[in-house]
């Protein structure tokens, strides 16, 4: 493909990706959508899920994102994600272990506040697990 899409993925901690790609599949809150070069301007919130990038500098990649926005302008696509983890960096065994730990935390919690916090962590981990 001659034309490329400028794609930026930023999280509060760092700029994860800023490169030219062929296509990005975005998990929008009202349904997934694909963005190709010269897409019409869209602004959408994200649901927790996997962002798929095709045709980047290092081939294709899959990144787990949670909470944030995708903005398509004529200049390209910008995804602001509160949390972004490349799936390649995730280890299933480790993840299962953390899920188990989190479940125990929920069970062991002594007051509502710690239980809510542990439950939140657990839900987050489960979302990541489901996306694999």
């Amino acid at each position, binding site marked *: 493909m001659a034309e490329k899409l400028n794609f*930026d993925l*930023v*999280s*509060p*901690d*760092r*700029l994860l990706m800023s490169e030219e790609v062929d296509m990005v599949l975005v998990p*929008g*809150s*009202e*349904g997934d959508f694909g963005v190709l070069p010269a897409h*019409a*301007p*869209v*602004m*959408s*919130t994200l649901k927790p899920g996997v962002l798929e990038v095709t045709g980047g500098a290092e081939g294709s990649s899959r990144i787990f994102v949670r*909470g*944030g*926005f995708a*903005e398509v*302008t*004529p*200049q390209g696509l*910008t995804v*602001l994600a*509160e949390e972004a983890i490349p799936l390649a960096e995730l280890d299933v065994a480790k993840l299962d272990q953390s899920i188990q730990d989190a479940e125990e935390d929920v069970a062991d919690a002594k007051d509502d506040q710690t239980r809510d916090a542990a439950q939140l962590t657990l839900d987050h981990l489960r979302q990541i697990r489901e996306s694999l």
Partner: protein
Amino acid sequence: MPNLKELKNRIASVTSTQKITKAMQLVAAAKLRRAQEHAEAARPYAERMDAVLANLSQGMVGNPGAPKLFQGTGSDQTHLLIVATAERGLCGGFNTSIAKLARQHADQLIASGKTVKILCIGRKGYDVLKRLYEPQIVETITLGHLKSVSFADVQPISKKVLDWFDAGEFDVCSLFYSRFKNVVTQIPTQQQLIPATVPEGVETANLNGAIYEYEPEEDEILAELLPRNMTVQIFRGLLENAAGEQGARMSAMDNATRNAGEMIDDLTLVYNRTRQAIITKELIEIISGAEAL
């Protein structure tokens, strides 16, 4: 005439002080690099957030359906000042300059009959402000136990502020922090968080006449974006603070080390002179004793 022993002790004590300040300077320099990287890594997110906000707010100005966080409560009676400072001292005028800016602002508001509430992030800001505004300080959050502030650490803070806002505890909220310009320059800054303002100089995207499609609706996106923006702005403020604190400490400790060096030189000179004077005096005594024979 100064006592030789006393002088020696003083030189030794200044030397050990110098060693400590030198070590603190080196530690600050090492920490500064990391803090600076953090602050710089967080900038793209905050900048893009500003741009998205700017794009969205164009269509929202004067719209009665706009969220409260954007257009305010319609009153400006109660002000919440979030004063973010460092957890530790010995960093020159860093904490005092932030507190001073906040104090000026608070005095101005109180003078014009407004109610002021203060939320301190960082122990040092509380130490400075409590003398004047003890009753106004609603809460102090310390982050001293954290090695570096992460986004997740800031979320509870912004949630608390938003809960207060929803409960009608205040109308206007501003954040005070120190913007990190470079190692020797930190600029105390005031930033209004609620009602949300779009910083000047943010470019809105050029759509070539096209119109945004919103998923979900514009006001829903804005309602979700504004609370996030709060977190991002506080987070950015704290990171800039962290970098500024280390920079300020580094230059303060550099000065202290240099002053200690000068002091050691002066004391050594006095010490040597005194010692020579004593030797000369003894010689004179011996010679005049021998001549008298």
